[in-house]
């Protein structure tokens, strides 16, 4: 499934998500043409169970979709829709082919079928059909997976990330939910933050790869002092570090998706968010340095990637937040538990009690 997914989506993105198109969507323009193509190909429903209308793809399969979205700076909530649909399906609810988003950071209370509260920093919150969130039931205070129709929001406060991608706050006041279910067994109340972190890690891996291609290519072509700048050892050594970071980010992200076959592999996801965020910082700096002034212009597409890396490294928890959670977990187990923890497959829940919420 993976190869087919990758080949198909890359063709789709190459056709539609050109640099010009991506730039024109920045600021909140809804990518109608792109989403129509995605919807027609059914990608958003990839992770939904077959009996609920999906392809029952695993996260290992969906990794290539998310990575490709990162590589092409895709200005649409594809990853968010994959995660939302996967969760709905896990909870026994039907998937939704239209654009969905997720609210990892929210304070929502549900009373029977009515929802009130606020969902923060919802990707493309102003444009999606609906969002998946976790609300607390008024009666028992237990977590409930909810699907909220965007048009029922009482207020939408618009906001944009560094790359001009919408990250909006939506407040609800006694709005009717579209669907709800108990949080599926095996999933943490933190599942949306974990899933979001996994998505951004996967996108960053794709963007880093594209950025390395672009930067190494530029270094081979740009001439100064009568030769390609890539022939200078100082440039070569920087690009080698860039390549190492890109390789590290790629494998960390792929591990997070691959290990998330039943639930989400919290520890591996934490490692992926940390590794990709660090790689983003190192790589964006080197990429700009090697490109010189041309890379600082709007016309040259370098910034489409670097500004996204700067945005994504902070979203769904910075490297610091995940490092702290991971560190806490490790220290509470002491040195005897350390190596066994690292060599297990990262399915353990992460202790997040002592750290700040998203």
């Amino acid at each position, binding site marked *: 499934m993976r190869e087919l997914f990758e080949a198909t989506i890359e063709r789709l993105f190459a056709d539609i998500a050109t640099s010009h198109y991506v730039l024109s969507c920045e600021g909140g323009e809804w990518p109608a043409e792109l989403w129509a193509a995605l919807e027609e190909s059914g990608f958003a429903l990839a992770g939904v169970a077959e009996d609920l209308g999906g392809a029952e793809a695993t996260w290992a399969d969906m990794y290539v979709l998310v990575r490709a979205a990162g590589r092409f700076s895709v200005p649409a909530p594809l990853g968010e829709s994959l995660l939302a649909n996967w969760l709905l399906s896990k909870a026994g609810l039907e998937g939704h082919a239209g654009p969905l988003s997720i609210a990892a950071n929210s304070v929502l209370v549900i009373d029977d079928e009515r929802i009130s509260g606020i969902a923060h920093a919802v990707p493309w919150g102003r444009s999606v059909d609906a969002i998946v969130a976790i609300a607390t039931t008024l009666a028992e205070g237990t977590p409930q997976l909810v699907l909220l129709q965007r048009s029922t929001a009482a207020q939408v406060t618009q906001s944009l990330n560094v790359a001009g991608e919408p990250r909006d706050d939506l407040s609800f006041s006694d709005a009717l939910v579209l669907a709800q279910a108990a949080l599926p067994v095996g999933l943490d109340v933190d599942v949306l933050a974990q899933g979001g972190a996994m998505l951004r890690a996967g996108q960053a891996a794709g963007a880093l790869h594209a950025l*390395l291609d672009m930067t190494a290519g530029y270094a081979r072509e740009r001439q100064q002092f009568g030769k390609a700048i890539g022939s200078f050892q100082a440039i070569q050594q920087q690009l080698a570090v860039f390549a190492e970071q890109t390789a590290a980010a790629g494998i960390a992200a792929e*591990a997070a998706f691959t290990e998330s076959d039943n639930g989400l592999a919290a520890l591996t996801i934490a*490692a992926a968010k940390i590794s990709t965020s660090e790689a983003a910082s190192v790589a964006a700096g080197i990429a700009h340095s090697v490109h010189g002034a041309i890379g600082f212009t709007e016309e040259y597409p370098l910034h489409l990637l670097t500004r996204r890396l700067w945005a994504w490294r902070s979203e769904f928890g910075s490297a610091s937040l995940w490092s702290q959670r991971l560190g806490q977990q490790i220290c509470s187990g002491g040195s005897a538990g350390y190596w066994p923890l690292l060599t297990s497959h990262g399915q353990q829940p992460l202790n997040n009690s002592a750290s700040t919420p998203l």
Partner: protein
Amino acid sequence: MPISQFTYSRLPPEAEVLRVEVREFIQQTLADYPPTLSAQSWMGFDAEFSKKLGAKGWVGMALPKAYGGAEAGPFARYVIIEELLAAGAPVSAHWIADRQSGPLINRFGTEAQKQHYLPAICRGESYFCIGMSEPNSGSDLASIKSNAVRDGDSWVLNGQKVWTTNAHHSHYMIALVRTGEKPASRHDGMSQFIVDLSLPGITIRPIRDLAGGEHFNEVFFDNVRVPADALIGAEGKGWDQVTAELAFERSGPERFLSCMALLKTLIDAVGKEPNAMQSREIGRLSAKLLTLRNMSLSVTAQLVAGEHPTWAASCVKDLGNVFEQELPEVAQLLLETEPRQEGGSEYARVLAYLTQMAPSFSLRGGTREILRGIIARGLGLR
């Protein structure tokens, strides 16, 4: 783009089975092994321990059964060595033989050479060292001067090697020397020899390192007469043979686990209620460790598939060395515990020792600049 060489692959279940066994073995044989000793990692020498590992079948385990090996795959060996390194087991005696010399002899040796050398390697009783560097040839290895001249049915060796780890404990050196007339290309005209270090004309002098340890040596060859069958592989093809070893030498867990003892003692010294800075740094470093392990396993998977991942192995070693070297730097900022050579806590002594060892991590096995040069070549820049 060579980045695509890195794909995630989980250890196969049959390799994971070994993990339980080797953990039990370590618990039995190394109970109460102090962190100050485990800090030596693969520099810790213990002939008895190597023999016990040999008896378990865990030395030279990838070699053919006919020569005492277990024909185990690289993943099985990976599990064994990562468990040993994580525990800081004293594996130095057989380390080079297991990692490099055994596979080299198996690949390039004659039937007689295999029968002669491999069984003792697999028993954990035969130790090897690598004679590549010379006083005037470090990074520029192709500039070596030591040479062997054919004389009847033997070869006569002259010259000097330096920084040879474990030469003073080893039975054999695999030496890279010049053979034949001045070649057209500087990478031609080199050959590898298995030199019996007890032969007359060989002088071995340990060189004390900055922490007072004796691990590496200078080795002099003064008209050392070795038999014709000391030549390993093809005459004049030494360079190709050496570079073929590099993927094995550069991608293993020893390239990022050298400071495991520090990480573990740090975790205990910090305790169960770390402050925000401590938990953040320990978490961040552990994430890197997990990622490096996944990269290293991915190179192992490429080796299993019969590929030659020299490029990917260079990435693992350089990133791994940067990580190992960062550990003492970060540790000393997390607790107000001064490093101690003597006295102080176990953590303080491990910190002192590994702070001093850290510079060597990015020298042995190829320097940072040389590795990054290889990586840049893979990016099409050279």
